[in-house]
């Protein structure tokens, strides 16, 4: 019977195998035979019959030894009994102590029977450790001894327990070793030799189903178990950083697992390992597979995705990073999903569905109140902590399980998910990541040129967190992308200003302002730039170094914008503000210099000088030191301190030398002063200009020096004369020809020389040569000055020569391939024939593409468009000027067309800005008078009568605007006053038009006659007027109409409609007069009018009709 004992032990534990078949969760897979289910152990003691001497014969023989052996036998028996009794009493630790003592005493025995018992005790002790005491590490260690000795009847089960034991106690290297052993053993298992009569054994062994199950449990691993083994092997390798080794096991799992979650987890681990191995090619193969799985809902996978995606993104593997970012489930969605899952799991485990809540009365009815419940029959598979486990047919749980929830025992997989959920919900452990993920995706889209997806994602990020750093960063990136890469300036500006309207603090409003500043600066849109100012003023003041630096730069650029927009006083204020408030900032020295420059623009030379002096004192190492000294000299020049100025320029020339960027400027300035002094100083001036020319660093410096020298050569014909001019100009053309030399001016000078020498044909030859050489080049604007000069000069040629020249130009026009050349020649020929206006109209209709049209062509088109009030191309033409011909004098007509177009559209502010721009560029030259008239019209439209009146009156004060602009202004003033009910003043203005300017503008004069009559009519009807005055008005009215009809400047066919009106207005009694006039009789009517105007022509104007 003794031989049967181990087998009965075996039988008692057989039921375990099924519970373990799929590596069931250890805590829940509590041994059926633990705690009172120990078969024979339960109801008997061990006695001498069980441990007779023969059993321990292996300890050796001999008297003293025999005595020792007997003692050992007794001790081992007692230890075993202690263990069994403790087990019966539910004292698992006591049982383990007793069994361990037994194992220790018998460890040296080599007797088969002892070994068999020892192995069985080991196995049982390990199970108690594993299941009852939850000391899986100790259990695994004991099982390692178990599998190393013979008579290990449950080796496969032992291996499975060991694997779990080492894995869960994070002993991964041991886990790897055991799994490799297990796989090896599975292929080459021991042949179990049972002791005793086989028939007897068979009879006893499998006397119940449990025993049979236990036997079956040690069958070879199933395919599912193989997959599980590889999964744990891969995991263990991964944990000990053996990334290459973990690939093969994971690949096995991916190929064999029927569990999508497990498969997804294995792919995820593969990718992480490949990332460590920097095997990016293989990663890109696995990512799409992962993308199609549902593994993202596992909390740990979800979080790992972020790390891996970030790493792939960082190395530029965007096509792999993108799907991983997409897989990341937002926190709320993940929590909701896991809570739903958990709820189902808890219900399946007969737990209340919600964590941490006591059962309601209804739930108690469903779940049985706070009674302990049976384990559920159906088990779920979850991935928790990287460990895939399963449970089947678990035994009943016991009281001493350490996880409880309102009296319920909670299965470990549920607890694991609950713990992970707690972590997920705790923002201090896992900060919000959704917006970060979206931002990363936006950046990624941007990096792969998927710009519009990027914009959309930036928008989403900003919308989700408009005040946070991530949201504001997204807004900044969106504005940058739109303005810099996509050319969507309008969209970018709208977003930026909207953002700035809402956010006043922190660094990002500064960044966005900086972007806008950069954008406007790049396009020279200075007036737009300074619209940013109100937003900057509203920023919260901050003293952080970074923000102050940005503020100083932003305000600096505002001041530059003001300077460039001719708002010099504002520029001075802002530059000085930067100097005072941002002391020590990078921009302070520059601001001081530019404050001085702005003063120069205001002709405030004294303050300008102070600024430059302060700069040289405070910043002796400043980057603009030479410029500051030079501009100080310019200020002195402006203050008429010419000697000091000469000394200053000499200092600059000597101190900073030819390498300085202001050397040529200083030479030119000093040359100008010497030149103004005349006499012997002219030679000094020529020397200075020559030096300036020779060391010029910019075309402008060379150009100025050359033509200034030419002026002296022309004046001082005794010493210099034309040969000097020719020599210098030709040198200039050759040296600077490819660097933007002003060919036109050069050719003009050469032409003038020839003209002085009365060699007109040679002068024309120069011009013609220049036209033929450079006429096809759009940017050679000098040609556009030569053409009218040449046409003018051609009047000095004989008719035959003139015709020949025209024919030559026509021939070139015919043969040339260059559209620009053709257009220029058409302008030249129109000038010859005086048909510019017609050409303008033709080009307005025929020229769709303006990109190759030079400024004179654009000018003709603008003038034609103005005539027919066609403003459709005004914007495009002006933009073309701004982009290509920024400094062209022809821009005036484009500005006029644009301004009048904007006015016609009712965009008064924009129209006004254009008016200002025209006056900024051209001052008060004759051609820009339109701007002042439009100024008045705009103000009138905006109902600002006083401003409008001033604007029109200002026209009268500018000598260059005499003539038609003045008469128009006077007429407008008449209209203005009439509209305000100031009928006398209005009458006077109208009267002034037809008296004083009838020869200037016949039509306007005719209109003024009628308007004056209208005023007289209104005055006559006013109730305050007495009868006498009324009679006078009536008389004046009649006289005015008669005078109009008799006025030979006014009564012309073009004004027939107006004359007809006048005739109608005259009473029937005047029919004789009309008849008289119609018969050709001339009148000598004297009209006397008392005018109340304050102008010099106003008081008592008397005029007499021409005979």
């Amino acid at each position, binding site marked *: 019977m003794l031989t049967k004992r181990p087998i009965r032990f075996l039988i008692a534990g057989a039921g375990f195998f099924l519970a373990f078949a799929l590596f069931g969760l250890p805590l829940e897979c509590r041994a059926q035979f633990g705690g009172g289910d120990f078969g024979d152990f339960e109801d008997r003691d061990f006695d001498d019959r069980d441990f007779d001497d023969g059993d321990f014969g292996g300890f050796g023989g001999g008297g003293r030894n025999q005595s020792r052996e007997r003692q050992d036998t007794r001790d081992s028996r007692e230890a075993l009994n202690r263990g069994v009794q403790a087990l019966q009493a539910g004292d698992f630790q006591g049982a383990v102590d007793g069994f361990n003592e037994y194992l220790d005493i018998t460890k040296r025995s080599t007797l088969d029977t002892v070994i068999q018992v020892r192995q069985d005790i080991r196995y049982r002790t390990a199970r108690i450790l594993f299941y009852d005491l939850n000391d899986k590490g100790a259990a695994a260690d004991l099982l390692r001894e178990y599998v190393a000795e013979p008579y290990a009847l449950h080796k496969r089960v032992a291996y499975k327990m060991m694997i779990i034991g080492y894995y869960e106690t994070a002993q991964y290297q041991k886990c790897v070793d055991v799994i490799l052993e297990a796989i090896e053993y599975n292929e080459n298992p021991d042949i179990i030799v049972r002791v005793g009569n086989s028939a007897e054994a068979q009879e006893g062994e499998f006397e119940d189903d449990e025993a049979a199950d236990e036997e079956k449990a040690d069958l070879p691993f199933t395919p599912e178990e193989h997959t599980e083994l590889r999964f744990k092997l891969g995991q263990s390798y991964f944990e000990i950083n053996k990334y290459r080794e973990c690939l093969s096991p994971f690949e096995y799992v991916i190929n064999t697992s029927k569990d999508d979650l497990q498969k997804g987890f294995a792919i995820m681990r593969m990718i992480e390992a490949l990332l460590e191995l920097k095997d990016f090619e293989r990663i890109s193969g696995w990512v*799409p597979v992962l993308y199609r799985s549902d593994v993202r809902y596992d909390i740990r996978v979800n979080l790992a995705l972020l790390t891996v995606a970030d790493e792939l993104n960082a190395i530029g593997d965007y096509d792999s990073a993108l799907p991983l970012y997409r897989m990341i489930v937002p926190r709320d969605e993940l929590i909701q999903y896991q809570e739903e899952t958990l709820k189902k799991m808890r219900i399946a485990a007969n737990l209340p569905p919600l964590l941490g809540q006591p059962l309601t009365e209804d739930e108690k009815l469903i779940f049985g109140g706070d009674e302990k419940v049976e384990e559920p029959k159906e088990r779920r598979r979850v991935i928790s902590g990287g460990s895939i486990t399963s449970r089947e047919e678990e035994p009943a749980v016991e009281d001493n399980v350490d996880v409880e929830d309102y009296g319920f025992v909670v299965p470990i997989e549920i607890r694991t998910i609950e713990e992970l959920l707690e972590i997920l919900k705790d923002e201090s452990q896992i900060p919000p990541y959704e917006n970060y993920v979206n931002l990363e995706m936006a950046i990624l889209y941007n990096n792969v*040129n998927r*710009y519009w997806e990027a*914009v959309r994602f930036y928008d989403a990020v900003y919308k989700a967190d408009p005040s946070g750093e991530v949201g504001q960063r997204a807004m900044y990136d969106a504005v940058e992308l739109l303005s810099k890469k996509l*050319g969507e300036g309008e969209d970018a500006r709208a977003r930026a200003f909207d953002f700035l309207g809402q956010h006043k603090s922190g660094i990002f409003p500064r960044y966005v302002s900086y972007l806008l500043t950069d954008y406007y600066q790049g396009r020279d849109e200075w007036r737009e730039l300074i619209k940013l100012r109100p937003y900057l003023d509203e920023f919260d003041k901050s003293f952080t170094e970074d923000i102050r630096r940005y503020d100083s730069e932003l305000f600096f650029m505002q001041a530059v914008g003001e300077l460039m927009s001719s708002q010099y006083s504002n520029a001075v204020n802002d530059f000085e503000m930067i100097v005072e408030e941002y002391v020590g900032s990078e921009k302070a020295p520059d601001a001081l210099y530019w404050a001085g420059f702005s003063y120069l623009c205001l002709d405030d030379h004294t303050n300008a000088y102070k600024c430059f002096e302060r700069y040289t004192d405070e910043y002796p190492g400043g980057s603009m030191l030479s410029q500051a000294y030079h501009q100080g000299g310019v200020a002195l020049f402006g203050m008429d301190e010419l000697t000091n100025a000469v000394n200053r320029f000499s200092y600059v020339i000597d101190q900073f030398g030819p390498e300085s960027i202001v050397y040529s400027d200083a030479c030119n300035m000093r040359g100008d002063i010497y030149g103004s002094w005349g006499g012997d100083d002219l030679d000094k001036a020529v020397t200075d200009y020559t030096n300036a020319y020779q060391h010029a660093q910019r075309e402008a410096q060379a150009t100025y020096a050359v033509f200034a020298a030419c002026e002296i050569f022309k004046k001082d014909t005794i010493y210099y004369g034309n040969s000097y001019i020719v020599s210098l100009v*030709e040198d200039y053309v050759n040296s600077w020809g490819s660097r933007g030399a002003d060919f036109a001016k050069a050719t003009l000078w050469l032409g003038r020389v020839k003209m002085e020498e009365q060699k007109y044909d040679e002068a024309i030859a120069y011009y013609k040569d220049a036209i033929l050489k450079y006429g096809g080049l759009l940017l050679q604007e000098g040609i556009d000055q030569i053409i009218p000069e040449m046409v003018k000069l051609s009047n000095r040629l004989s008719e035959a020569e003139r015709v020949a020249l025209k024919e030559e130009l026509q021939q070139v026009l015919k043969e040339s391939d260059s559209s620009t050349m053709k257009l220029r020649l058409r302008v030249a020929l129109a000038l010859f024939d005086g048909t510019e206006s017609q050409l303008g109209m033709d080009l307005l209709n025929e020229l769709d593409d303006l990109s190759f049209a030079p400024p004179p062509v654009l000018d003709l088109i603008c003038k034609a468009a103005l005539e027919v009030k066609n403003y459709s191309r005004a914007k495009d033409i002006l933009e073309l000027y701004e982009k290509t011909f920024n400094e062209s004098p022809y821009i005036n007509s484009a500005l006029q067309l644009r301004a009048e177009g904007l006015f016609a559209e009712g965009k008064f502010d924009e129209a006004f800005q254009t008016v200002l721009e025209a006056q900024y560029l051209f001052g008060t030259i004759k051609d820009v008078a339109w701007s002042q008239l439009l100024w008045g019209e705009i103000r009138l439209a905006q109902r600002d009568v006083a401003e409008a009146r001033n604007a029109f009156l200002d026209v009268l004060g500018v000598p260059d605007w005499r003539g038609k602009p003045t008469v128009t202004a006077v007429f407008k003033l008449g209209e203005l006053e009439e509209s305000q009910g100031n009928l006398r003043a209005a009458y006077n203005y109208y009267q002034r038009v037809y008296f004083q300017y009838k020869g200037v503008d016949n039509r306007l004069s005719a209109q003024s006659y009628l308007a004056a009559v209208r005023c007289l009519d209104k005055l006559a009807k006013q109730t305050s007027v007495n009868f006498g005055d009324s009679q006078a008005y009536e008389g004046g009215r009649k006289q005015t109409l008669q005078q109009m009809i008799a006025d030979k400047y006014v009564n012309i066919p073009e004004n027939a409609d107006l004359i007809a009106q006048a005739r109608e207005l005259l009473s029937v009694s005047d029919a004789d007069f009309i008849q008289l006039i119609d018969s050709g009789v001339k009148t000598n009517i004297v009209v006397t009018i008392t005018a109340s105007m304050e102008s010099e022509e106003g008081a008592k104007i008397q005029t007499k009709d021409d005979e």
Partner: protein
Amino acid sequence: MRRVVSIVLLLSTFVAWAGAQQSGLPAKMTIMNGNTADVFLQRVEGGNLVFQANRSTRDLSGPIDKIYYLQFLSKLDGELLVNLYSSADYAGMIQNIDQGLNSKTDEYWQFMSINNNYKKVFLMLMESYFEVGNYEQAAAAGAGFAQNEEDDVAADKGRAMLIRLALMQDQIEEAEKRLEEVVTPSAKLYLTACIQQKKGEYKESIWSVSDLLEQYANDLDWVPQAELLNAVSYRLLADDEVVPYMDSAISTARQVKNIHVDSSCAGEAKQLQEQWILEKAEMLEKEQARAAAMEKELEKVKKGTDEAAEEKDSQE
């Protein structure tokens, strides 16, 4: 319910009868109460499925909404079909299915309003017909799937096909009308993008797809073709040459190819990517030629000044 039970009774009656020749498509039919029967499907008629029991030539019918599942019994090589589809070999796909179904493919479409084991294959087939230009079949397929009340995705795939066909014929209003029937939000965004693209609203189309990517990035029923649509929108934008949208188109196609490896879009994306790379090279060539012409012009100017200098030297 009574009707269903009677169907089953009738089935069991006729199953025993051995008929020599039987028309229709052989299938295993599962009805809502879980009962199954081997039947020969005849047609769909007024919301009813007409079938014959095994070894019976008598037509029986039952309401479609009481039928849970049809398992067609013809053999198709699913793996091969997926491979053909994902490599954009649409003609091969059609031919293979036709062979597997003994040239009776057309007869199957009407049954796609009921859940069945060929649904995935037939969705691919529908796309294949569209891609090879067999629009009549594609329309029949679309109409069949659009009736499926049990499976929103399949039904929307059918509706999507009908919308795409309408767009192809410039019937934008018709497409917009059909869009209202679409159920799944991701499908709606994708089809909105299709309509916007047709209208020439390329940026708006990309935005709609971006919304889909932001809200339903893991809905792989619609994401691959939506991203491919974006690639095409970028290509169309590239015609303006305002910004380097050609690179955007190529990048997007590349990403579709790499991210949605096993989808038919991957094959199409690959073809487009290769085509656009060639087009880009041509564009660059033209650009270079233009730059060279400019260079030549500048050279002329320089030459002009050099000649003037030489002339001056010779005069001296």
